[in-house]
């Protein structure tokens, strides 16, 4: 996937062959504020794409619109070949998400929470699936403990287990490793990489963690003030800004420094 893909028209035929996410001319206005301002991009199936940007850049709003939690003011969104939010019933069971803006019910145990969400997503082999996730994400020790009594790292693993309960084809993650210690964060990243490889899933993640994005993502979309500032592979972007890591690129973009070479 390259910058050229951003201009591709939305495809409606052959949903199975289309991109996982196609967004065209997306705008979100909150009164006079343009939270998202004419954003277009496509995310190829099986890829991991990072949405980068400072606070208020429009990353969360963009992801929320893709999920159907927020309605766009204008523009079009296709997810797994279906128009959102009109055809959301066709895709919600095939995708899932994790976000710091939502929690799992605190009084329910981890097992109860996963059971409820497993039923909501019509997971057929639910007991086996929970056992498998417990093994994969190391939840065994606290599977029958109330969610509210877990540490931040444990809660994040549980939230990830919920996000994976239905073996989603598309996973939307909003700052999946925020407030985690480096070891747990690295562990989560490893699991996401494995999940992508074994299931051929598509992952779109918003993050402030540049190392995370460099390590996980095939492609990076940098947003600033609701617009796409840059869009390419991490290596290509770093080369364009003549930088050795994405953190420096991020600072260049945030502080309005000019690129070293034209895209």
């Amino acid at each position, binding site marked *: 996937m390259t910058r050229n893909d951003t201009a591709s028209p939305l495809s409606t035929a052959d949903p199975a062959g289309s991109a996982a996410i196609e967004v065209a001319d997306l705008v979100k206005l909150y009164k006079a504020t343009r939270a998202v301002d004419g954003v277009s991009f496509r995310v190829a199936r099986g890829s991991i794409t990072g949405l980068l940007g400072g606070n208020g850049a429009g990353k969360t709003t963009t992801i929320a619109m893709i999920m159907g*939690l927020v309605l766009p003011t204008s523009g079009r969104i296709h997810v797994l070949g279906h128009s959102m939010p009109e055809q959301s019933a066709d895709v919600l069971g095939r995708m899932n998400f994790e976000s710091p803006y939502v*929690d799992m019910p605190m009084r329910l145990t981890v097992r109860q929470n996963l059971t*409820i969400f497993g039923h909501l997503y019509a997971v057929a082999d639910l007991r086996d699936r929970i056992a498998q996730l417990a093994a994969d994400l190391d939840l065994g020790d606290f599977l029958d403990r109330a969610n509210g009594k877990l540490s931040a790292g444990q809660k994040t693993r549980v939230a990830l287990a919920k996000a994976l309960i239905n073996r989603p084809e598309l996973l939307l993650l909003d700052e999946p490793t925020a407030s985690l210690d480096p070891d747990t964060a690295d562990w989560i990243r490893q699991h996401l990489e494995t999940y992508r490889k074994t299931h051929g899933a598509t992952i779109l993640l918003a993050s402030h963690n540049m190392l995370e994005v460099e390590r996980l993502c095939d492609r990076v979309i940098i947003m600033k003030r609701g617009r796409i500032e840059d869009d390419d592979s991490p290596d290509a972007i770093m080369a364009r800004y003549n930088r050795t890591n994405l953190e420096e690129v991020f600072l260049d973009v945030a502080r309005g420094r000019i690129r070293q070479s034209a895209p």
Partner: protein
Amino acid sequence: MNGNAASKAAVGRVVAHRRISPHRIGAMVQRYWYLLMSSWPRLLELIYWPALQIITWGFLQRFISENAGFFARAGGTLIGAVILWDILFRGQLGFSISFLEEMWARNLGNLMMSPLKPIEFLISLMIMSLVRLAIGVIPMTLLAFFFFGFNFYSIGLPLIVFFCNLIFTSWSIGIFVSGLVLRNGLGAESIVWTLMFGILPLACIYYPVTVLPHWLQYVAWSLPPTYVFEGMRALLSDHVFRADLMIEAFAINVALFVASFAVFLALLRSARRHGALLQGGE
């Protein structure tokens, strides 16, 4: 799994997600049941207030019936009214509190992003309102019987009609206020607790409609509970079942229910437009 089988399975999954699913409704009921069973204060509260109500009003009824001819003839009218009012009030609270649990837990985003449909969500809240009502009101009726000799179930079949009309009204109000909280966040939570009291004087729970000023009677007759309480008084005082009142109440209830569902959907859409589902706070 080959490609053909995989695509058939995918189509099957999509079809399953398009229909109203008893499975998903059951999952939500299970979620609230787990919550209720995990918290003894929640369970205790369900019984505590109705019990307090019936004991207070029961003693009042006993005092009045010993000192006034009318109430002596209309034995149980006051206690009956208290129990029916509690069905109306607790029915709405049972619905709305289950909804508020999602707001308090910041779980609404998870649900709205799942295949759960709004109608399935609302049906699960209705079922939970019945469960919570049963936990609170059945002990209340037993207290009325053992302490004050009032057998609520002696009302017989009309009780089912009274109950259905009242529970429909409580759900309509529950759906409406849940929509308001969905759109405006927990800042609108107080409406959940107070709106029903707004109709308390107009529904003529403890007195006949004729007590109201003539012009206010039109307002009272626009509320389904008014018909139920008038019907209850007719039954307990005059031993007459007013089917006409119940049919009129049912007709208004159907209109009210459809309107509240439409308003809920409009408020949900507005919440999505304003990004309220991600905020959920005040």
